[in-house]
C-alpha cells in the first residue's frame, strides 16, 4: 500500500516536472547568413498562401533572398488556429512563421508562447516606424514586447449598392450619423420583394466598439465606459426596430445566396470584404460603392499578424524574422498582397503610392483606396487583454438578447456585466 502511494507521488512529481519544463531557457540567436540556403516553413489560413506565393515569386524578393525557399501549411481559418493553439499549448515546435488573425492576438499578448520581436537580433522597433500604430499596439505587451508583426489591416467602411441607392434617392456618402444611416436604410429596403438594407442587426454592433478586438476593459473594469457599450446595444435595437434587415447569419448558405441574388443593399465591414464581393458574392463590376461609416466613425474589422513561435529553433528565427520583415515592410510585398487578396497594407508609406489614387473598376471607378487609407490612419488604439475572448462571447449573448427583444439594452448590459465579473474574477 505504502509502495503504491510512493509510486503515485513519484509519478505525479515527474509529471509536474515534465509539464513545467516550459520554463524559458536562455538561447543565443544568430544573425542571418545570406549565403546559407533555407527552407522556411510557414503556417497560414484562408487565401494568404495565394498572396505570399505571389510575393515570393516577385523579382524583388528573388533578388533579396535568392537562397530562401518555402513550405506552406495552409488550413481553413478555424483549422489553422486550432492546430496552432494545440501545438503551442503542448509547447512543441510549430512552423517557423505562423499567421494569426487579430482575434487570436489578445490571448498571446500576455501569455507568452511567441517570440518577442523587440529584442535583439530582431530589433523590430527599427522596422516598425511606418507600420500603422493601432495594429502594433494590439500586439505589444505591457512590458513592451512585440509578439507579432501586423501585415494587413482592415479599415472598416460602409459598402453599398449604388444602383439601389440611386433608385431610392438616397446618398450614402458622408452620412452624418447612425440615425441618418437608419433613415437611408428604411428607404433602401424593399422587404416585400426580398431586398434588405442590411444582413442582420448584429452586423453593426462591433463598429462603435472599434471592431471589438480589444477595448473591453478600462482600468481593469470590464465593459467600461458604460455609454460606449450601451450605445452599441442601443444601435442594434434601433436597426432591429427599423425592420430592414434580412435576419441572415453571416457566411451561411442563404446569406451568400442573398448577396449573389443582389438582395442586400449595404454592409459595414473591413476593406477585405471587397475581395469577397469581387471574387465570389457579387463579381459583376460597377454595382458597389464605398463610403465612410456613419458619422465618420473609425474602426477596424479584421487583420493579419505574423509571429515566430517561441519553440522555433534559434538558428531559424533570424531567417523567419527577415521574411516577416519583408512581408510587412517592403512596399512591393504589401502592394502584391493587397492586389492579390484585398488585404489592406499595414505599411503606411505605401498609402502615398500612386496605386492608392487609381480608379477601381469594381467600384465603378471610385477611388476607394483613399477612403481605406484615411480610415486606416485614424483607427483608434484598442487595449487588448487576456479576457477579451470571454468577454466577447458574453457580449455576443447581450447582442442576441437585444436582437430578439428578450431584454432591453440596459438589462442586457447589466446581465452581461454580471456574467463577465463572475467569469473573469
Amino acid at each position, binding site marked *: 500500500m505504502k509502495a503504491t502511494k510512493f509510486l503515485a507521488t513519484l509519478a505525479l512529481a515527474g509529471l509536474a516536472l515534465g509539464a513545467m519544463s516550459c520554463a524559458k531557457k536562455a538561447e543565443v540567436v544568430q544573425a542571418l547568413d545570406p549565403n546559407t540556403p533555407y527552407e522556411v516553413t510557414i503556417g497560414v489560413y484562408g487565401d494568404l498562401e495565394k498572396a505570399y506565393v505571389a510575393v515570393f515569386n516577385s523579382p524583388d524578393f528573388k533578388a533579396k533572398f535568392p537562397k530562401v525557399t518555402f513550405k506552406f*501549411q495552409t*488550413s481553413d*481559418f478555424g483549422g489553422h488556429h486550432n492546430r496552432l493553439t494545440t501545438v503551442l499549448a*503542448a*509547447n*512543441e515546435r510549430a512552423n517557423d512563421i505562423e499567421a494569426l488573425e487579430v482575434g487570436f492576438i489578445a490571448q498571446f499578448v500576455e501569455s507568452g508562447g511567441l517570440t518577442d520581436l523587440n529584442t535583439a537580433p530582431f530589433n523590430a522597433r527599427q522596422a516598425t516606424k511606418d507600420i500603422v500604430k493601432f495594429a502594433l499596439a494590439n500586439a505589444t505587451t505591457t512590458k513592451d514586447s512585440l509578439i507579432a508583426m501586423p501585415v494587413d489591416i482592415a479599415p472598416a467602411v460602409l459598402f453599398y449598392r449604388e444602383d439601389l441607392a440611386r433608385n431610392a434617392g438616397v446618398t450614402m456618402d458622408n452620412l452624418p450619423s447612425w440615425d441618418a444611416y437608419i433613415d437611408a436604410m428604411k428607404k433602401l429596403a424593399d422587404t416585400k420583394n426580398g431586398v434588405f438594407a442590411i444582413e442582420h442587426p448584429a452586423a453593426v454592433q462591433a463598429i462603435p466598439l472599434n471592431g471589438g478586438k480589444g477595448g473591453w476593459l478600462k482600468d481593469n473594469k470590464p465593459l467600461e465606459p458604460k455609454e460606449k457599450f450601451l450605445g452599441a446595444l442601443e444601435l442594434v435595437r434601433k436597426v432591429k426596430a427599423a425592420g430592414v434587415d434580412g435576419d441572415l447569419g453571416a*457566411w451561411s448558405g442563404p446569406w451568400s445566396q442573398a448577396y449573389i441574388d443582389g438582395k442586400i443593399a449595404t454592409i459595414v465591414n473591413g476593406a477585405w470584404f471587397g475581395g469577397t464581393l469581387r471574387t465570389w458574392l457579387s463579381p459583376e463590376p460597377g454595382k458597389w460603392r464605398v463610403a465612410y461609416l456613419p458619422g465618420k466613425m473609425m474602426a477596424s474589422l479584421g487583420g493579419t499578424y505574423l509571429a515566430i513561435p517561441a519553440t522555433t529553433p534559434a538558428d531559424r528565427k533570424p531567417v523567419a524574422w527577415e521574411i516577416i520583415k519583408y512581408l510587412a515592410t517592403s512596399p512591393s510585398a504589401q502592394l502584391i498582397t493587397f492586389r492579390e487578396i484585398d488585404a489592406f497594407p499595414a505599411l503606411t508609406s505605401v498609402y502615398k503610392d500612386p496605386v492608392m489614387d487609381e480608379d477601381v473598376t469594381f467600384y465603378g471607378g471610385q477611388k476607394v483606396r483613399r477612403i481605406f487609407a484615411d480610415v486606416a490612419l485614424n483607427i483608434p488604439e484598442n487595449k487588448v487583454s487576456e479576457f477579451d475572448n470571454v468577454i466577447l462571447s458574453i457580449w455576443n449573448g447581450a447582442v442576441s438578447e437585444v436582437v430578439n427583444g428578450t431584454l432591453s439594452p440596459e438589462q442586457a448590459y447589466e446581465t452581461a456585466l454580471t456574467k463577465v465579473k463572475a467569469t473573469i474574477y
Partner: protein
Amino acid sequence: MKSSIIVKKALLYLILGIMALVFAYPFYNVFVLATWPGDQVLRSPPHFFFGGGLAENFRQLVSRIPFGRNFFNSLGIALTSTISVIFFCTMAGFAFAKYRFRFRDQLYFFVIASMAIPGFLNIIPFYKMMVRFGWINTWLPLVVPGMAGAFGIFLMTQFLENSLPNDVIEAARIDGLGDLGILMRIVFPLARPAMAVLGIVTFVGSWNNFTGPLILMPKIEATTLPVALSLLNSRVDNNQGALMLGNALTLLPLILIFVFFSKQIISGLTAGAVKG
C-alpha cells in the same frame, strides 16, 4: 383478412419509404451538387438533377490538393484501424463475455469507465507524446492508440454474451480445440454481425476524423482527405464546385463500406451452427 394484410403491408412500406426519403435525400443532393460548375452551385430553387461540371470540378480538385495521396492516407488509416480494432476487440470481448477470471468485473468496469472520461483535452499531452515518439506526420498516432478501443470491447462483450451459445464452446472443447482455436474457429465466424457493426463504426470514425489528422499530420501530402478538403473552403477564393465534388468523393467510400459490412449484419447468424 387478406385485404387487411395488404393495407398493413402498404402502410409499412409507406412509413419506411417516407423515412428513407427523409434520410437519403441530402445525400443524393451532395452528388447532384458535385456535378454543377462552381458558380452555379447555390441556386434558388435548388438543383434536383445532375449538371455538366463534373470534369472541370475534378480537374480543379486534383490541381488544388494531392487528392490521390490524401485519399490513400484516409483509406489506409481507416482500413488498418478497422482490421486491428475488429481483431483485438473481439478477442477481449470474448474473454470478458465467456471466461471467469480474477478481477474480471473490475477490469471490465475500468474499460467502460475509460469511455466516460471526456477526452477533449487529451490532445495536448498526447501531441507532446507523439512528438517524442517521432510519430508526427505518420499514420501511427491515428491507428495504434485505438487498436483495442474500449467501445469495441464493450460492444463485443455485450453481443458475445448473448449470441455465442455456451454449448457451442463446450462442444468445441470436447472436440479438442484449445482457447486460441476456439477464438479463431468459433468466435470469429460467429461474431460476424457485431464485428460488422464495429467495423462500420471504426471505419466511419477514422474516415471522418478531422481534428486528429489536422494536428498530428500537418503536411498536406501526409494528411487525410477531410483535412485537405478544408483548404478548398477558404472564404475569398471559394471554389464551390471542387468542394462539392470533394465532399461527394469523401462520402462514396463510406457508403460502399457500409453496404459491404451491412450484409454481414443480417446474414451472419441466420445460417450455421447456432440454429441448434
